């Protein structure tokens, strides 16, 4: 668990792989959702095009320091989260920078991006951004509770907080996954996952019709580009945590891509079916459904 | 009506307590310690025939000093209270009927007699029953008679107050003399106790009783004077 200089290029490699996989994955799921609605959907490479367009635009306006730093916070939150958690179990190369902190670091680092995004949106001065932030924060905090309970239950079960040890404990077939040994925790975790993915039932924050795309309202061109990069990396980074905690981690990149895709499909499927919640409905939903499951997970571990 | 009922109830409550006192009371056959001491030692030590006077003046001299001060206080405070209501000269006469012939001549003749009896009473305090208070009261009744006879009569306040002040200071001085020369404060033996039963016997008791008589007489007179000089309030 010590720091060697070789870790830097290896993490960059992981970052590159995950970035591309993320762009393709989000476009693919978008396409599947469109097809479910009998629409043709966007082409697979669409995200690349958007990214290049936004990076290419030359813009020269800013709403102030915090507005400027907003996307930087956001993206460094996503990248940091990815690098603090080992992606591929067993390979020294892809254990990234997980020597710096354990599961709790990952859990709390999620807030780093959210905080930056909120501050940037606030600085932009647009009321829709502020309303979006208020809704986003309310929802994220409510969603946070079941995840914390699930993580606590898992930590109690495996008597450790280090992610690599947890994954190690789940090796050897599906029977050893947390999904089987501690199903309640997994259910609570997945409920929280739904909340944090900003997909249909809980996507009032970015609601395109009500408050045009919420917090990033005032962002455009290169700022938006940074955010889109993050939009690719951040979900994958979160799903890596869920994969490591609940679904036995990935021992090879193929297994990694498959599992991430399947986890993503869970929120996509739920998103397509359910209508949008108002924020207090979602908070109440978490407190009445997700939390009892979490509590049961803790008590019965 | 409720007040009568409640008062009756409380009185019954007290009555029960007092009844317990009365029933539990057995009179002594013999004199108790203190009384026995007084019976045997008064004649020998203080040479006073009247034991009650001896107790009042010497043994419990402080009580009497306190009690004379009570009268002095009463007179002073009555003066304080009635001072603002002081009426003009002769205000008292308007309402009262003119005094009858019999009253004026009788009072002119009787006043000196009453004064003499008063003085006799407090001078012989240590021999016969009676003493400073009784004599003082008699002197006051003399002043009372004069007031009845001539309602407008203005007493000379200065004289009354000087008598009162002088006798008060003298009384304290006698007490201090007792402290200096005899056994303790207000002890009468700094003067010879003289022949038992004679007028000038029992040390300073007659002196003290005379002072008390004068003071009490003056105080009562000042109370009466203050009362008569107040405005008549309808």
């Amino acid at each position, binding site marked *: 668990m010590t720091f060697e200089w070789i870790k830097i290029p290896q993490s960059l490699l992981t970052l590159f792989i995950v970035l591309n996989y993320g762009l393709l994955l989000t476009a693919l799921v978008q396409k599947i959702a469109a097809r479910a609605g009998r629409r043709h959907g966007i082409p697979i490479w669409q995200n690349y095009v958007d990214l290049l367009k936004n990076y290419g635009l030359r813009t020269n306006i800013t709403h102030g320091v915090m507005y400027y730093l907003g996307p930087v916070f956001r993206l460094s939150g996503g990248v940091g989260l990815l690098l603090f958690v080992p992606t591929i179990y067993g390979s020294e190369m892809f254990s990234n920078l997980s020597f710096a902190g354990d599961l709790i670091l990952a859990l709390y680092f999620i807030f780093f991006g959210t905080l930056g995004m909120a501050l940037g949106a606030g600085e932009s001065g647009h009321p829709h951004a502020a309303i979006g932030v208020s809704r986003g924060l309310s929802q994220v905090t409510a969603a946070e509770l079941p995840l914390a309970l699930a993580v606590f239950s898992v930590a109690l079960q495996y008597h450790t907080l280090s992610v690599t040890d947890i994954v190690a404990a789940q090796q050897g077939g599906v029977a050893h996954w947390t999904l089987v040994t501690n199903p309640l925790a997994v259910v609570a975790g997945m409920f929280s996952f739904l909340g944090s993915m900003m997909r249909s039932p809980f996507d009032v924050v970015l609601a395109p019709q009500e408050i045009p795309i919420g917090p990033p309202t005032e962002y455009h061109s290169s700022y938006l580009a940074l955010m889109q990069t993050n939009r690719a990396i951040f979900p994958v980074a979160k799903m890596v945590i869920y994969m490591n905690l609940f679904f036995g981690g990935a021992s090879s990149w193929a297994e990694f891509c498959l599992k991430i895709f399947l986890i993503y499909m869970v929120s996509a499927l739920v998103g397509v079916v359910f209508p949008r919640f108002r924020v207090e409905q979602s908070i109440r939903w978490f407190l009445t459904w997700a939390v009892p499951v979490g509590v049961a997970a803790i008590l019965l571990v | 009506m409720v007040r009568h009922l409640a008062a009756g109830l409380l009185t019954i409550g007290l009555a029960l307590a007092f009844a317990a006192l009365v029933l539990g009371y057995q009179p002594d056959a013999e004199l108790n310690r203190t009384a026995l001491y007084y019976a045997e030692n008064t004649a020998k030590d203080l040479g006073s025939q009247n034991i009650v006077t001896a107790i009042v003046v010497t043994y419990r001299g402080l009580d009497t000093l306190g009690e004379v001060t009570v009268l002095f206080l009463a007179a002073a405070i009555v003066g304080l209270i009635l001072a603002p209501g002081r009426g003009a000269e002769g205000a008292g006469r308007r309402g009262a009927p003119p005094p009858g012939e019999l009253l004026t001549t009788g009072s002119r003749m009787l006043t000196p007699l009453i004064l003499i009896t008063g003085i006799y009473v407090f001078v012989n305090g240590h021999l016969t*029953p009676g*003493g400073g208070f009784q004599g003082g009261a008699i002197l006051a009744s003399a002043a*009372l008679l004069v007031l009845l006879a001539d309602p407008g009569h203005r007493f000379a306040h200065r004289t009354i107050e000087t008598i009162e002040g002088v006798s008060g200071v003298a009384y304290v001085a006698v007490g201090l003399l007792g402290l200096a020369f005899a056994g303790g404060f207000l002890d009468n033996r700094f003067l010879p106790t003289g022949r038992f039963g004679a007028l000038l016997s029992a040390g300073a008791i007659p002196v003290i009783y005379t002072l008390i008589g004068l003071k009490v007489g003056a105080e009562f007179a000042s109370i009466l004077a203050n009362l008569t000089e107040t405005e008549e309030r309808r």
Partner: protein
Amino acid sequence: MSVLLPAMTGLLAVAMLVAAAMTIVTRSLPIAILAAGAVSLFASVLFLLLASPDVAMTEAAIGSGLTTFLFFFVLGRVGGRDNG
């Protein structure tokens, strides 16, 4: 002789109680004050029976004499009517 004392005390006691009742019950104030004076007078006689001449003289001179006079004087000043 020995029977005379209790009889006299009994008589005085009754007289005093009647006078006391008078002070409380009567309508007019002067009667009440006189009754109080009477109580004090009977008391001084009772003191004589209880072998204490000094107290008897004091009670007579101060109790019935001066107190009653003080009451009548204030009553005179205050208008006499029983406006209590």
